C-alpha cells in the first residue's frame, strides 16, 4: 500500500496474476521424473463468492462454459461446485491423469471468466493434486495474488509432510516460481479436489 492509501485507510483490492499457471504442465513432468508423483487429474479453483446477483450470474456462465467443453472427447467429468467450511467456493475439474494440459486450460478458463467480470480480487488459490505409487498425496497450490506456487502434502489428522514439501520446492524451483516466504504456505485441509 502506498503512503496515501495508508493515510486515508484505503486498501485496494489485489488483482490476481494468472500467467504463471501455465508453468504447471512442465512442472508435472519434473515432479514425475524426480519424485514419482503423477497428477491425479483433478484440480480446483477456490474463490470467495461475493453476495449479490452479479456474481451468481458470472458463476453460472463459467459453469456453462466448462460444461460445453465436456461434450468434446477427452473433456473429462463434469465440474463440481462445493462450498468449504470457510465459506469459499471451489470449482473442481476432473480429468484423466495424463491430461494436465486440458486441466490447466479449464482452470484458466475459470480464472479469466472471473477476472473479466471484475471479480479478480476474489480469487484465493488454485490447487492441482498429485499422488505417487505409495499413495502419498502432494498438491501444488497457486497463490493468485503473489503469482507463486507452494507444495502442500497433507498427512492424516491435520499434519503436513514438511520434508516432502521442501523436497518438492527444491525440485520445482527451476520450473515454477515458488513462494519463498514459508509463512505463506497456508494449509488447505480437506480442500475439494485434494
Amino acid at each position, binding site marked *: 500500500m502506498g503512503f496515501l492509501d495508508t493515510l*486515508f*485507510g484505503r486498501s485496494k483490492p489485489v488483482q490476481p496474476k494468472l500467467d504463471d499457471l501455465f508453468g504447471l504442465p512442465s512442472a508435472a513432468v519434473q515432479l514425475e521424473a524426480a519424485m514419482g508423483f503423477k497428477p491425479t487429474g483433478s484440480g480446483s479453483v477456490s474463490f470467495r463468492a461475493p453476495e449479490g446477483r*452479479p456474481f451468481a450470474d*458470472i458463476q453460472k456462465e463459467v459453469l456453462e462454459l466448462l460444461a460445453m467443453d465436456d461434450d468434446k472427447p477427452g473433456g473429462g467429468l463434469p465440474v463440481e461446485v462445493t462450498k468449504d467450511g470457510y465459506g469459499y467456493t471451489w470449482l473442481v475439474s476432473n480429468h484423466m491423469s495424463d491430461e494436465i494440459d486440458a486441466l490447466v486450460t479449464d482452470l484458466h478458463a475459470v480464472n479469466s471468466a472471473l477476472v473479466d467480470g*471484475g471479480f479478480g480480487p476474489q480469487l484465493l488459490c488454485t490447487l492441482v493434486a498429485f499422488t505417487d505409487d505409495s499413495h502419498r498425496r502432494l498438491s501444488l497450490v497457486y497463490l493468485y495474488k503473489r503469482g507463486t506456487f507452494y507444495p502442500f502434502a497433507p498427512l492424516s489428522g491435520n499434519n503436513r509432510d514438511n520434508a516432502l514439501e521442501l523436497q518438492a520446492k527444491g525440485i520445482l524451483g527451476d520450473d515454477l516460481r515458488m513462494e519463498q516466504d514459508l509463512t505463506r504456505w*497456508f494449509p488447505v*485441509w480437506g480442500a475439494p479436489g485434494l
Partner: protein
Amino acid sequence: MATQTRYAPDRGLTVRMTATMFLLGLVFVAFVALIIGIMSAANASGASIVLVALIFGGGTAFASLFFSDKIALAAAGAREVSPKEAPELHGIVDRLCALADMDKPRVAIAPGMMPNAFATGRNSKNSVLCVTEGLLYHTGLTQEELEGVLAHELSHVAHKDVQVMTYASLLAIVAGLLVRFAFYSELFGGGRRSSNDGNAALIIPLILLASAVVYAISFLLIRLLSRYRELAADRSGALLTQNPSALMSALQKVSGGMNRIPTQDLRAAEPLNAFYFAPAMKLSGGASLSAVFSTHPSLEKRIEQLSKIQRELGQPGADPRGIR
C-alpha cells in the same frame, strides 16, 4: 493497464479524514508557534519544561508504538495460539491474508466473556490479532460473522492504524504533559520566584492555558479520526470478504453483547478501547456528547455504511468492470 475494480473509493470519507488530519496538523503548528512566541517574549526560563514534555511525550509515544503488540497482549492477558491449538481461527486468517496479499499477523486469544477483537503492532511484520474467548465461544457468531470481524481487524493492520493513531496522539500527549508540568510547577515552584522574574511568572500560566486548549482540541480531533479509521476498516473488511451482511450481523451481535456485560470487565478493558472492534465503554451522558467523544462510530453509522456497500455489490453488471 486498467485495473478492474467494481467499487468506487469512498471520497466523502477520504475528504473528512484529510480535513481532520489537516486540522490536527494546524493545531500542532499553532501550538509550536505559540510556545515559541511565549518563550521569546519572556526569556526562556520555561523552556526546560517544554523540552522535558517533548522528550517524555515523544518517548512514551515511541515506546507504546514499538511495544504496542506486547503491551496490548499483556493488558488483555492474551496468549498467542499456534495453528495446532486454534486451527479454525488460523484457517480464516490464513485465507483472508492470502486474499488480501498481506503478511499474516500472529494470532492470540484473550480470556474473558466480553466479545471483542483487536489488532495491534507497529507494522505488518510485528502485528498481532487478538480475539476474546467471549467472541469465539459465547456470542454465537457464525463462521462468516467471525470472518467479518477478523477482516475488519486485518484492515486495521493493513491501514497501519496503530502507527497513524500514535502519530496523531503525539501532540495530545505532549500538551497533556505540559498542562500537568505547568500546573505542578505553579503549585510548588511559585514561592521561589524572585520579584525581578516577573515575565517568567506569566509564562507558566500561559503555557498551561495554551496546552489545555490544544489538548482539548486535539483530543476531539483524534477521536474523530479514530471513528473515521473504524469506518474505513469496516469498509475494507467488507470488501475483502465480499460479505457486508455478515459483518453487519456480527456488529449487531457484539454490540448487543456489550450491553449485557458487567462493569468490572469494562473498566479493565478501557485502556485498549481505541483498538477494539466495538467500544467496550459506554459513556454516560447525552447521546450527542458521547458521539463526539467516542472512539468508534455509532452502530447505526456503521450499519448504514455497510448497507451501502451491500447495495453496490448487488448492482447488476451493466458495466461489470464498474467504476474505476
